[in-house]
């Protein structure tokens, strides 16, 4: 499903929220985690954040907490889990390497290739389920009292999260070609965006 981007935070968050009866909450948490995940480039053997399982756990956590405190707690929890989940992906990749080495030693057959490939897929699913399920269980109990303490209203809460996402936006412009190459279209976009924002 990852190939179709169903596992992106903005989608997995909305789907989890919908399953829990809180689609708007799910989408909002997913959208914030997406803002913090946009700059990740899954090239080569880089360690990836497990954003999908982190988002599922974050939304399940948020659904059990009072708003607006639920938003920052869930977003941070989701990012921490996604980061930690990345280590799980790496462990699995090393395990897969050992399995393929074993296949080469034992003699390569179509059956062994098929079993090795499907077993890796099943283990990856299990890994994601453990991170998402474990993260949701821990989050729902551990942060129950924490979200109550959050003193800001919803608008201020979103402003705080967006403030930190601004760093990611800067990195993204660099990934798109950098300031010198893109400054004209970027600044033109800002003018258009401010105009749209004032109209909405």
């Amino acid at each position, binding site marked *: 499903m990852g190939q179709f981007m169903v596992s992106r935070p903005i989608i997995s968050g909305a789907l989890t929220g919908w399953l829990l009866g809180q689609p708007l909450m799910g989408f909002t948490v997913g959208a914030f985690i997406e803002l*913090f995940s946009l700059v990740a480039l899954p090239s080569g053997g880089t360690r990836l954040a497990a954003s999908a399982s982190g988002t599922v756990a974050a939304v399940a956590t948020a659904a059990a907490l009072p708003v607006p405190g639920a938003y920052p707690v869930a977003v941070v929890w989701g990012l921490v889990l996604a980061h930690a989940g990345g280590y799980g992906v790496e462990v699995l990749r090393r395990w897969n390497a050992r399995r393929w080495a074993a296949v080469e030693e034992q003699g390569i057959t179509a059956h062994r290739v098929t079993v090795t490939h499907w077993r890796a897929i099943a283990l990856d699913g299990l890994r994601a389920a453990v991170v998402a399920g474990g993260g949701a269980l821990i989050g729902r109990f551990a942060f129950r009292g924490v979200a109550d303490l959050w003193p800001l209203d919803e608008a201020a809460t979103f402003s705080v999260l967006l403030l930190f996402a601004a760093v990611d936006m800067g990195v993204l412009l660099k990934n798109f070609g950098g300031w010198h190459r*893109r400054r004209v279209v970027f600044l033109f976009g800002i003018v258009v*965006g*401010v105009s749209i924002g004032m109209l909405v």
Partner: protein
Amino acid sequence: MLAGLARGALVRSLLIQGSWNFRLLIGGGFAWMMIPALRRIHGEDAEAAIARHVEPFNSHPYLVGIAVGAVIRMEEEGVDPETIRRFKAAVRGPLGSLGDRLVWAAIRPTLLLLALLAWAVGGPPLWVSIGFLVAYNAVHLGLRWWGLQVGLSEGPRVARRLQEVDLARRAGRIGGHGAMALGVFCGVLVAGSLGMGLWGWVWTAAAAGGFGFGLIRGSLSIRSARLALVGAVVIITISGLV
């Protein structure tokens, strides 16, 4: 027959990264993907052909169809295994880096930004999600299909076609659209903050500082930004006790 075999392999290519590992990269997945085609082409000798394909290989998953189509064509034409091995070794670098630049660094963030922008201006989450999935997967599946056709028609000469199409230049163009979408998104957020009076200006200045930090430091800024976010959430939460 050739097109049918390649289409079957292309469906399997959706799972090609399932056993990604540091030894073969997606080489194991590539061998698994080729099993039905190799059985049809080589019959009883298929096991040896499958074993040949368990070797290091890499490609962006959306462009792997180029290699799949070309390899199936070469296998069907009876090209010697060493030539096929050399072909795979030659294309794995370009298919990986071109795909990363085109899809992961340009198309995907641009479409996600457009989805976030639609949400920021009040778009209904359901339609934002559906719109993103439809738009993205139209490009994604189109790219896979195009790659397969190129591989099948060009065979081992795919490099010539890739030069003509110049995917790197296209990635650059899409990056320009992405920068524009990023600007619009940032502009919408700034316009929203201006309604908050003095705090709005303070927020805009702080956000501009964060943006500049990210722009200058690049991905090196991410770790410190995440730690700062966690710290800020903890401090604000604790301040609720006071």
